[in-house]
């Protein structure tokens, strides 16, 4: 088990190193520091200002180790990323770590409740649909799920903003305020939209998993012993369907930190998702490569955690 974990982590480190090299080529070699400086300062910026900007951002050194082994941008890129010293934004010179810390709160305020509620609601609805299997409730549920999956999240957003926020006036159309007295108002609508857009695929997936379990021998045995339907579903079916559920959960958890790009952008929530979109739109390469790096690290961690969690819920799984 320990050897497996170490091996998986070593693979993960290699993947992260590869991602870092790819990022370097993309952000320093394809787009040169001069290009980045001009985008930040304007096309007509004088050479002195361009040079000064490059010095301020540490972009004034040779790119490759064979140009200068002691002081080159490749090593410095690896060093800064691996020590989490992300430097400053190309767009506004604000330390990127400061932006990440500032954006993490709003992102988590949106994604954690959305994830928790989505999980509970999806599992429960799937169980209900599985309980009513082969009845019109089940069939209607499947139709609604397919319908829900087919509709773009953008339509949900526009529809919810128009119907719930504008016509019915239940919640603000967009915006964010972390003050305790108003924060629920701002999060209610994006969470609703997030639930609506994800619930279809989740319910369909969990329903399939539960139905597979429902027809197994141990369920028949439990029923023969006189167990109630609800007890069978929760105690036996749900417990035995944990591996696919866990796979979805554990992979999703690390990405709660990176926020939701679409929801944050459309609802004006200043989280990490919106930060990434801003970085793309504003040619903020430093922030963008940091977010890509953070995303890749989180993905690697999620993969390892997923594998480990299998052995926790299923004693038959041996990691070697």
């Amino acid at each position, binding site marked *: 088990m320990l050897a497996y974990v170490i091996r998986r982590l070593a693979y993960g480190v290699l993947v992260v190193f590869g991602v870092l090299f790819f990022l370097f080529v993309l952000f320093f070699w394809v787009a040169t520091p001069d290009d980045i400086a001009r985008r930040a300062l304007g096309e007509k910026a004088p050479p002195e200002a361009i040079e000064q900007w490059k010095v301020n951002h540490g972009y004034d050194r040779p790119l490759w180790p064979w140009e200068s082994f002691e002081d080159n941008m490749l090593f410095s890129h690896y060093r800064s990323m691996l020590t989490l010293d992300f430097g400053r934004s190309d767009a506004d010179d604000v*330390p990127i770590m400061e932006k990440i810390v500032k954006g993490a709160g709003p992102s988590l305020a949106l994604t954690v409740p959305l994830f928790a509620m989505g999980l509970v609601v999806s599992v429960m609805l799937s169980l*209900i649909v599985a309980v009513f299997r082969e009845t019109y409730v089940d069939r209607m549920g499947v139709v609604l799920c397919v319908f829900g999956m087919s509709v773009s999240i953008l339509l949900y957003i526009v529809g919810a903003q128009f119907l719930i926020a504008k016509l*019915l006036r239940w919640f603000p159309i967009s915006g964010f305020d972390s003050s305790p007295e108003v924060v629920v108002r701002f999060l*209610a609508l994006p969470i609703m939209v997030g639930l609506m857009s994800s619930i279809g695929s989740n319910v369909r997936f969990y329903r399939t998993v539960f139905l597979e379990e429902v027809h197994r021998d141990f369920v028949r045995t439990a029923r023969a012993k006189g167990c109630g339907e*609800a007890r069978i579903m*929760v105690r036996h079916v749900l417990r035995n369907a944990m591996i696919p559920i866990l796979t979805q959960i554990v992979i999703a958890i690390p990405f709660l930190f990176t926020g939701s790009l679409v929801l944050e952008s459309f609802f004006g929530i200043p989280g990490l998702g*919106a930060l990434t979109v801003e970085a793309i739109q504003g040619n903020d390469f430093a922030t963008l490569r940091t977010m890509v790096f953070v995303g890749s690290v989180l993905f690697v961690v999620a993969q390892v955690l997923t594998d480990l969690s299998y052995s926790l819920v299923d004693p038959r799984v041996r990691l070697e």
Partner: protein
Amino acid sequence: MIHVGWQQSPVRAFLTLVSLVASAVWLGCSNNPYPDADDELKVLYTVYVEAPRTLDPAVSYTVGAHKIIGAICETLLEYHYLKRPYELIPGLAVAIPEPVSLEDGRVSYTFELREGVSFQDDPSFALSAAERGGEKMTRLVVAGDYLFELMRIADPRVNSPVMHTFSKIDGFRAFTAKLMSMREDPAFAALPVHEQYRRAGPIKGLIARGDFSFELILSESYPQILYWFAMPFSTAVPWEAVEYYDGEQGRPRFADHPVGSGPYRMTHYDKQFRIVLERDPNWYGLQHPEWKAPGTIYPENPVYGGAAGESLVGQTLAFIDRIEFRREKETVPRFNKFLQGYYDKSGINKESFDTVIQGNKLSPAMAAKGIKLDRVVDLAISYIGFNQEDAVVGRAAGQQGKKLRQAMSLAIDSEEYIEIFLNGRGQPAQSILPPGLYGYDPDYKNAYREVDIPRARSLLIEAGYPSGIDPKTQQPLKLRFDTSATSAAGLIPIRYLVDSWRKIGLNVEVVSTTYNKFQEKIDNKAHQIFQWGWVADYPDPENFLFLLISGMADNKGPNHANYRNPEFDALFDEMTARSDDTVRAEIIQKMLDLLEEERVWIELLNSESYVLYHEWISQYKRPGFEFSTIKYQNIDPKLRAQRRRANNQPIMWPAYLLVLIVLAILAPGVVSMIRERQ
């Protein structure tokens, strides 16, 4: 440990959870995006789409940034809020300085500052508290603060976009050169910036006359320099703030934390989300109401019949306590929040234009909501330019090129263009000068700015291109319209222009590239026909006519048509050096006549801004170019709260109906399942 009830039935558990969440949401159910406690405060709620890249007064040159900086930083001169044409009034200066001619054509202005004006409270002033032996949070504004800011503009590292304009100050460029050469010494480069300036300076044409006066000497006559002292570039900047706000140890950069002496100070700055300005108790208007300084009291209203009553005249500014800039990237939510009363002012998005404006007026539905419309023709021009260095459409083609340009000008219908693409928000331009400027004549009709297809065709024949055929090749003449528009929507207006020329037989190809490539073409003078625009920095014809002088061609400035005409340049120099009088008006008319004949540009339109605002906003008058007017505006928060409450009651019956529908769907299933299981 899970409660037993949760194990009994997933249906029951699910319904319990839904009920709990619904109850929690119910309690917070309101569409008010602001804390209830703010409902009756004098807070102005406005929006921004993109945060300004910088709020450094020496650098920022965008409308969005000037809206913020203009409220934080006081300038020596200002504009009269109500008078049109625009008129300069003293701001922090005691009076508007008069030019004094010196030898060698130099001109001097002496600015007298008001004494007893303080900066906003800021921790950076602790840096100089010891040498002043006093206050740690603020200090008086002195002449040195203005000189320091002008030196910052001369510093290439600051990258000020107005360096060229201020280089008319005697010794300005010499200071720049000296500063750069001294910076080659690492020991000097390591010194604080204000110390570097002290050692490299002073600038010959900037002479401090004590703490509250300084002399400005220009190397040539340039009366328009006064307008630049009504812009944030030349505001007083304390060296302490520049040194203190270095972006280190958690401190913001000075570009994100301007410190000034204006009526408002920044109390919250989160670029991605919210910017807050609050009225500054140190502001000289509040500290010294007895002065009745022109920039601190509500002005008399000579002409404008707006909402301002006579009782307001002489009242001390500023009326609004707090300004909340909220970030709204999407147009539809932004406009809907305005309609709900959560933003006080708004532009009109394309999607809603027809419901808001009917017959060039506010629709009855909008008027019934108490919404008002403010229309202003911007001091701006949009034009189609011809690269004068091009062998076909430029001056290089001589008479043939000129006739071709004249023909093309006669084919463009500005009115139709404005109607189709701007919802009628604009007026056809007859000359380079927009309405509201000295030299603009409303009765002037440009002979080539009316649609006249037969005349255009005959001019094409005179140009040697009958029906658009090039006699050299016997093929249709091929022209290029270079544009940085790449989206389908962005190209539609360009295609309209090209189709207009097709009517006279001209074949113009649209060459669409990225902005950078387009810029490259302009730099290399590889462009032929292009579209561009200009918005005034200040209300003087010089600020438009300079767009076509030789000195601004060859990528030295915004003369992208590369027009060079010694006669025009000589007239420009003569016009620039004069104040507004009949001779100046005659010179301007001569210049306009030249441009009318030459057709360097096809003057397309002067855009018109429509701003909607709610009935609780008073004393609102928007200028046609950017200068800060926030201190003159007022809000009735009680009326706003009342209207918001009346218009934003949640409609709950659909929620009850939804619950009933869900129950109705589930009930038969539950019943049938119970029967089956039994």
